[in-house]
């Protein structure tokens, strides 16, 4: 014990006299070594990242080049079966270019138009591929659009090649700078003073698309999707915010509500947006507002509602059958007639049930309404009717040209039918088609197959996933 004390004292005196160089130097060396190791690691990671970006850049440039080439080739292959492979190629190349461009650290505003262009080229090519596969000739309008696209693809390819040449001349793309200053450079350019030249900047490329025209075609990224008008509310009478509050009370049931407060109101000057009043509701027995709802300013229809009150967890649950009934009652009380439940999903004590209206025994799948039911007591805690508000109207259904028996001929012989309906379904482009809906089985799985009731074309195959908790189409 005493010996140890003495030793400690010696160390202390040595330390106070500054004779502990060895210790200090060792610790310093260790820290420096550690720091250098970390620094080296950091450089390695940085290099790895730069390589990834660099690869994405080369890929983008190559794919865009290919898009340009294939657009030239397809112009020479005029018969549909010869066009199809070029469109398939274009679909893939443009999609890969878009994917790679999205992986680079460009500021969104610097590449958004280029990304959109590539999405649309891919999407448009896909639509044209389908047309060609079906043996249909492309119309003059289709070719005109393709020429337009080609014009832009050429410009884009040219700009990217300029950057690529710079890189091949030994310049490095300033990824770090692009990440940090892309935006600043863009703002400088906007203010009129020339931004510094950053190697690899695509701001100039993006500018090529300033006057890029609206592209309308049969695909999910076509510009018509953005421009669709909500059929249920457009042109309807405008309501006041007080009227909106009354609608809220009727919709939810007045006895459930302490207060209704307007918390937001869409500026009606904004384009492509459904103007709404947003209300926050303080429910009975609650201290804070836990329900929000949007009412359209035109027509005064609820577009969505969410009740996010924390619910005590319980083991007791109502049956899905009861939940469906509660949802049906709710819809009937709020005057949504003829709504038929289609599929449902139950997760964590909450069921989401999808409803679609019927017209002359034809199910209208585009006009979807979703109702959320809490399984503890069957309270309605969510409502979503964007599909209904956008699409619902009395349709002039086309003449059915195929009998059910004829439609069955279009099905695979391995498919065992369990149920047949007629339905209007939305394609990805939101174009609606009247179909026979065949539910059935193949091997161990359930499927729904849609056969166009006019042309006999197989429009869609959905796989039905049935678990204990959900019946869902995929």
């Amino acid at each position, binding site marked *: 014990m005493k010996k140890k004390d003495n030793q400690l004292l010696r160390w202390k005196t040595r330390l106070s006299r500054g004779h502990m160089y060895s210790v200090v130097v060792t610790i310093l060396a260790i820290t420096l070594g550690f720091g250098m190791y970390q620094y080296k690691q950091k450089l390695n990671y940085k290099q790895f990242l730069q390589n990834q970006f660099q690869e994405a850049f080369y890929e983008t440039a190559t794919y865009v080049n290919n898009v340009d080439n294939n657009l030239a080739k397809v112009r020479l292959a005029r018969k549909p079966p010869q066009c199809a492979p070029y469109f398939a190629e274009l679909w893939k190349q443009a999609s890969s270019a878009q994917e790679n461009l999205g992986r680079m650290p*460009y500021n969104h505003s610097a590449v958004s138009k280029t990304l959109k262009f590539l999405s649309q080229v891919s999407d448009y090519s896909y639509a044209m591929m389908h047309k060609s596969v079906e043996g249909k000739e492309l119309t003059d309008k289709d070719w005109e659009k393709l020429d337009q696209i080609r014009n832009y693809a050429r410009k884009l390819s040219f700009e990217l090649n300029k950057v690529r040449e710079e890189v091949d001349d030994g310049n490095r793309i300033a990824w770090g700078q692009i990440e940090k200053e892309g935006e600043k450079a863009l703002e400088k350019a906007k203010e009129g003073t020339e931004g510094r030249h950053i190697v690899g900047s695509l701001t100039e490329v993006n500018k090529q698309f300033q006057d890029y025209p609206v592209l309308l075609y049969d695909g999910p990224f076509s510009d018509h999707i953005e421009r669709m008008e909500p059929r249920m509310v457009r042109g309807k009478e405008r309501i006041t915010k007080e009227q909106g509050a009354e609608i809220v009370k009727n919709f939810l049931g007045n006895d459930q509500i302490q207060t209704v407060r307007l918390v937001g109101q869409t500026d009606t000057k904004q384009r492509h947006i459904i103007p709404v009043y947003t209300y926050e509701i303080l429910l009975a027995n609650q201290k804070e507002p836990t329900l929000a709802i949007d009412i359209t300013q035109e027509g005064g229809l609820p577009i969505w509602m969410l009740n996010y009150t924390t619910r005590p967890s319980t083991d007791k649950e109502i049956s899905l059958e009861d939940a469906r009934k509660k949802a049906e009652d709710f819809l009937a009380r709020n005057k949504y007639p003829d709504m038929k439940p289609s599929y449902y999903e139950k997760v964590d004590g909450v069921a989401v049930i999808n409803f679609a209206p019927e017209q002359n025994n034809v199910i209208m799948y585009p006009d979807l309404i979703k109702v959320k039911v809490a399984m503890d007591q069957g309270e309605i805690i969510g409502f979503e009717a964007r599909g209904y508000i956008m699409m619902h109207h009395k349709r002039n259904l086309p003449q059915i040209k195929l009998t059910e028996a004829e439609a069955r001929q279009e099905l695979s012989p391995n498919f065992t039918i369990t149920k047949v309906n007629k339905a209007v379904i939305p394609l990805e482009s939101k174009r609606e088609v009247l179909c026979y809906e065949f539910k059935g089985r193949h091997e161990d799985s359930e499927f729904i197959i849609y056969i166009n009731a006019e042309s006999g074309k197989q429009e869609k195959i959905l796989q039905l996933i049935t678990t204990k908790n959900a019946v869902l189409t995929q």
Partner: protein
Amino acid sequence: MKHRRLSIILTSVIMIVAVGFAGFVHSITPRAIEVSTYTWGSKGETVRKIQQKLKQWGYMEESADGTYGYKTWDAVKKFQRKNNLKADGVAGTKTLEKLGIQATKAAAEQGQGGAAKAGNKDVRLLAAAIHGEGRGEIYLGQVAIGAVVMNRTRHPSFPNTIAGVVYQPGAFDAVKDGQINLEPGESSLKAARDAMNGWDPTDGAIYYWNPVTAKSKWIWSVPISKKIGKHVFGKK
């Protein structure tokens, strides 16, 4: 003597700086935080479940308020003693197991189960993005963040998949600083499911930003359509 002392001070300073630097490098490396134990001050749905079970089995009388206080701690201790667990009043994995409660991680997986089987395997990813970006937000604000991600997947100027949108460089701060790797809470998972099921409090927005902290001038050129919680939402 004087210069010796000076040299000691100098070396000390250098060492502190060096160690501090190393520590800093270490501290900015993102780490996932796992919540699997509950103790004094814990709050939330799992705490509520713990309290309900304890109440059900007569270990406590107070109502389940979702806050882990003294009464809960005491009841947990009693429960642990009864079940031959270490009676420390901390509800860890073993205690939760005995209570028949799945810890946050397990609950998350279970919650995802139904949807995952239904093909929505991205629920977990979307929930992580929501959690990283807006775990301090009101529930509606969380659904709104999820809805913006969903809207982007359908927009031509963005990647077409949830993973593509979430991991797009520079798109989300929570991805940049690694907060996306945090375990999403129940609220984020619920919000992700609502957003995937089509609930969209933003009415079609593809951008959002915090008006207090947003530094970009460009973002203010986006017309604002809604304000929810701390964020404003809009599309161009």
